[in-house]
């Protein structure tokens, strides 16, 4: 095989008029199909390389900034459920890995953060998911205190109907004085055990809004399950050395 023509040859593709005239006088022999294929393949390869390099370069350049803002975002999110004044440890370092847990509705491994003050356990912050929202999965973040109360709950990700089911997110809640999700603040695990951790329509203690019970029910049930789960394992979770993976003990 002869070597393929250099693909990025500036003189060939946009044939200038002068060259075209020459070509008319003495047409070059038609290049073989193999040559054309090889040339095209090399051009495509070069384009792929060039644009992959462009993407890789941009990624490399932006990565430190992206990671920094992801960390800041994480702390801001944690700050919504757990005020920074309540703990004095470095939260992002005092973390353990949770395997994908059915009880929390999670399909992937997640991180659980442990807040302490003067070395004493204060609260656990972790992700929860409600798989049964009106339009799929609702992602939540919850803070559970060491004495078994749900300190606060926030929606991190959802696809509920705008203007109808999205009041579960306090930013979208039209009742700005008393956002719906604040009714969970400080409620203890005994409500779960007493069967009261449900929306009122199901005989529980939490309000739902007319027309969008499914969203409220999904969030309520998921948070109740999560609160009980965390409370029952609270001691183990606080004792586990940082960086390790929590393992559910067989009962």
């Amino acid at each position, binding site marked *: 095989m002869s070597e393929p023509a250099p693909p990025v040859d500036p003189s060939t593709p946009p044939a200038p008029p002068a060259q075209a005239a020459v070509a008319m006088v003495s047409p070059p022999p038609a290049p073989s199909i193999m040559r054309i294929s090889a040339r095209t393949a090399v051009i495509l390869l070069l384009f792929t390389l060039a644009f992959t390099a462009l993407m890789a370069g*941009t990624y490399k350049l932006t990565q430190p900034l992206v990671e920094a803002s992801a960390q800041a975002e994480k702390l801001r999110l944690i700050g919504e459920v757990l005020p920074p004044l309540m703990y004095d440890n470095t939260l992002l370092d005092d973390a353990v890995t949770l395997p994908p847990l059915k009880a929390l509705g999670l399909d992937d491994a997640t991180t659980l953060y442990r807040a302490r003050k003067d070395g004493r356990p204060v609260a656990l912050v972790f992700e929860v998911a409600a798989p049964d929202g009106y339009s799929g999965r609702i992602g939540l973040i919850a803070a559970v205190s060491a004495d078994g109360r749900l300190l606060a709950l926030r929606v991190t990700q959802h696809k509920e*109907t705008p203007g109808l089911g999205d009041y579960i997110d306090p930013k979208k809640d039209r009742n700005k004085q008393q956002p719906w999700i604040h009714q969970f603040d400080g409620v203890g695990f005994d409500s779960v055990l007493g069967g009261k951790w449900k929306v009122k329509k199901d005989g529980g203690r939490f309000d739902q809004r007319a027309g969008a019970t499914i969203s409220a029910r999904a969030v309520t049930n998921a948070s109740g399950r999560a609160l009980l789960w965390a409370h029952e394992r609270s001691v183990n979770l606080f004792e586990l050395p940082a960086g390790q993976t929590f393992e559910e003990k067989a009962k």
Partner: protein
Amino acid sequence: MNPYREIAHNGLWKQNAILAQLLGLCPLLAVSTNLVNAVSLGLATIVVMGMSNLAISALRGFIPYEIRIPVFVLIIAALVTVVDLAFNAFLHDLYLVLGIFIPLIVTNCIVLARVEAFAAKNSMPVATFDGIMMGVGFVWVIGLLGAIRELIGQGTLFSGIEMIIPTAAAIQILPADYPGFLIAILPPGAFFVLGLLIAGRNWLDHRANQRILGQRTQQSPAAVAG
């Protein structure tokens, strides 16, 4: 007609991406549930369309005709990725709002369509201008669609603006006890409103044609009146 004026007229009205070519319906219908989301996606689309038209116009001499489509797709996808990363790093607050929409731009066929139909055959300034104008044509239609759907569905405008401008708040247009009209927000509502917009455009065009016709036949006004 001045080529730039003609490009602007094509992008904004005559060959409007949505109303005339019906391209890019996937992001259009998915994102136009409210005004802020719609305009945000539209602005990101303008950026990508301008950049991809410029890049492909600049490289058009090097792209063999047979493999132009894979190369176009490669270039558009790479540019969208670069825009996505750059937004994430340098405009993080805006990224939190627009972030989920930027990858959607790749699915917008209007980008590929303009690259293939226009940028691959025209010089860089003209091609870039065409990309931007097609993008502006997309923005005004998707913005109008978003505004109508939000107003009918929720009775507000600009809901979600606080994610872009923290001090701003949504404007309640209809009375606060307006129960909302769910279908406007669900996908079928998008089709209804879009259909009405297209019908409105056709009606305006039809009226304009009639007027031109009327001017031509002014010698016999009775014929027009009849």
